[in-house]
């Protein structure tokens, strides 16, 4: 017996399923328990608990018209829907809905690459296209454009962008929502909307000018629940002539401030792609009791203590990998310019050469690239995080990510390290917050990423994880740091921290939600926005 949405009778549910089957074909409606179970969130922190968020059924449209039919039937019966693209948003909900009893609209089989324009630099795709699919489409045709992909290549450009996902190449492309241009959306009443220039019949600039005329509404469909996106355009990066990377190492803890300033300049001037910060001392934590003692001290190590420890081992305290894309002569000059600027700003800074490539790469050369996403090559290597390995003999069952947005400055990193160090200590989480460096996917901000383990056999682990997660969200918010993305179970908590002027943002979104989706059928709870009938009531 499926879990039905609140207030829905079995008879209504059965009637709706019958209409879905009539509109789509019985083989495109998923109702068998063992098949619906495959829509569970494999990384759910509520796994097998009574309040695990599960679907009641799924529908599998293959055309826009079928999506419209599903939405109209859902309106007739007030069936909550939850659209997924490839359904691989693991750590952020996977293929499960935000509201138990929802019918998942599985868009995996709407998987056409509709257009790739090499000369004008864009693609138009359906939601079921994965990064692997789009990459292969481009490679098979020998087109000289790059995609920007997130870590797991089986994700959907549409789904990833709509959850504000991120990648690894050049700044203009790493923010996947920011580099989209034009959407087609089935609205909550079943009408079809095209945004930007797509609203102008006959326009051929849908993937080139994103704003069209009037209000820019695309943002409502990212982490939102105002429609089901059925097409989306993305800007593509021209294949560069060459790539080179170089490593900058600085000797003192406080050098981080000048290092970030210098790297910000290089990045904001479009001289480098993604900068990768790191801490060379991390590799000594396991073998150096003195370092562990410093890190475990209340308040953590002083600047002098950390500097002395590093100097005694001829180690830098921080490092940053700079990545250059472009004509060979240009990127050689940019690397030289970067070294000059940083050497002038930070005494004792050192520089090391890293990988360099010229494009196109052979298949064999591609295989040897150690960080493929930096070259827009989708892969699955990231799953070594959590999987069994020499360093991880006890594999995890999954994870959640705490991912707060912090300012793009060295001072902010050091402050966040201190605050996280305190909260790790309070919660008994262990870890080395004082050496933690931020993720740098976004062009204009840092993310201080923290992973929480999930266990499918021990609910106590998951309860502790959720309690710890809530606590770090609260602590971060006290410092003005908010999450950029959330697993479903934390969405309300996180939205509650975006509380300026008595939660004006949430209230405005609720006003829009009530107007655009009066029956509350689209992705209830997504982004912490609930339809009127589910607000302030147990769900």
């Amino acid at each position, binding site marked *: 017996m499926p879990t039905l949405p609140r207030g829905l009778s079995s008879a209504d549910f059965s009637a709706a399923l019958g209409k879905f089957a009539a509109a789509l074909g019985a083989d495109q409606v998923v109702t068998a328990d063992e098949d619906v179970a495959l829509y569970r969130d494999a990384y759910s922190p509520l796994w097998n608990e009574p309040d695990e968020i599960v679907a009641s059924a799924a529908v599998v449209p293959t055309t826009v018209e079928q999506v419209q039919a599903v939405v109209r039937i859902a309106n007739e019966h007030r069936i909550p829907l939850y659209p997924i693209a490839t359904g691989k948003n*693991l750590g952020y909900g996977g293929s499960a809905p935000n509201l138990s009893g929802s019918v998942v609209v599985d868009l*995996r089989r709407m998987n056409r690459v509709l257009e790739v324009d090499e000369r004008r630099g864009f693609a138009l795709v359906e939601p079921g296209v994965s990064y692997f699919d789009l990459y292969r489409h481009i490679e098979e045709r020998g087109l000289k454009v790059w995609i920007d992909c997130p870590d797991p290549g089986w994700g959907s450009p549409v789904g990833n962008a709509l959850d504000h996902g991120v990648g690894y190449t050049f700044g203009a492309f790493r923010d996947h929502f920011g580099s989209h241009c034009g959407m087609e959306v089935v609205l909550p009443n079943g009408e079809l909307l095209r945004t930007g220039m797509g609203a102008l019949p006959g326009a051929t600039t849908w993937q080139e000018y994103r704003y069209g005329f009037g209000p820019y509404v695309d943002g409502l469909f990212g982490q939102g629940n105002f429609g089901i996106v059925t097409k989306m355009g993305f800007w593509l990066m021209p294949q560069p002539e060459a790539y080179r990377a170089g490593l900058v190492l600085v000797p003192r803890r406080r050098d981080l401030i000048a290092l970030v300033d210098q790297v910000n300049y290089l990045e904001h001037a479009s001289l480098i792609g993604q900068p990768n910060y790191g801490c060379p001392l991390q590799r000594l934590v396991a073998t150096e009791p003195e370092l562990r003692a410093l890190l475990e001290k209340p308040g953590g190590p002083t600047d002098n203590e950390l500097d002395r420890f590093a100097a005694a081992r001829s180690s830098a305290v921080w490092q940053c990998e700079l990545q250059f894309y472009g004509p060979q002569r240009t990127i050689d000059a940019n690397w030289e310019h970067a070294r000059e600027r940083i050497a002038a700003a930070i005494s004792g800074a050192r520089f090391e050469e890293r990988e360099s490539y010229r494009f196109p790469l052979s298949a064999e050369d591609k295989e040897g690239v150690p960080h493929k996403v930096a070259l827009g090559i989708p892969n699955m290597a990231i799953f*070594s995080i959590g*999987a069994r390995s020499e360093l991880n003999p006890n594999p995890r069952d999954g994870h959640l990510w705490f991912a707060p947005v912090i300012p793009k400055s060295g001072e902010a990193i050091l402050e966040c390290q201190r605050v996280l160090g305190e909260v790790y200590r309070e919660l008994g989480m262990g870890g080395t917050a004082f050496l933690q460096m931020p993720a740098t996917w976004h062009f204009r901000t840092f993310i201080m990423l923290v992973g929480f383990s999930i266990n499918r056999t021990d609910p106590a682990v998951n309860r502790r994880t959720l309690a710890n997660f809530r606590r770090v969200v609260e602590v971060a918010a006290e410092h003005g740091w908010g999450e950029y993305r959330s697993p479903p179970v934390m969405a309300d908590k996180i939205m509650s921290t975006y509380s300026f002027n008595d939660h004006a943002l949430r209230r405005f979104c609720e006003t829009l939600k009530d107007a655009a989706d009066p029956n509350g059928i689209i992705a209830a709870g997504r982004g912490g926005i609930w339809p009127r009938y589910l607000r302030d009531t147990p769900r």
Partner: protein
Amino acid sequence: MKLRDAAVFIAVVWVAGPAAAQDAGQLERGRTLYEYWCAPCHGPGIGNNGVQHLPGTDALRVKYRGALPALLTERTDMSIDLVKTYVRQGLTVMPFFRKTEIDDGELDAIAAYLTRNNPRPAR
């Protein structure tokens, strides 16, 4: 093709019959699906910086320590049911797959491919 080779070819097809041709098609389909869905984690090749293997291959390498091959394509001990169980139930960080990703027929083909070298017919 020489006449003798043609005769051998005809004899093999005649003896093996349509079932073998169908099996070959099923195995090729299974290989293609395996390459698409499984090989990105379980195939050969290097992982991210400093990791010598892809994550699925590395996990099985560490788990079996040479007692069994780390590459699924080199295994000869897996049953069809075992392959299907992992695909539909997942294991550790490997999630299960929906039927819109790998349908039952496709899973049959993948299982046939991964059990093709078993010493006894896989069940």
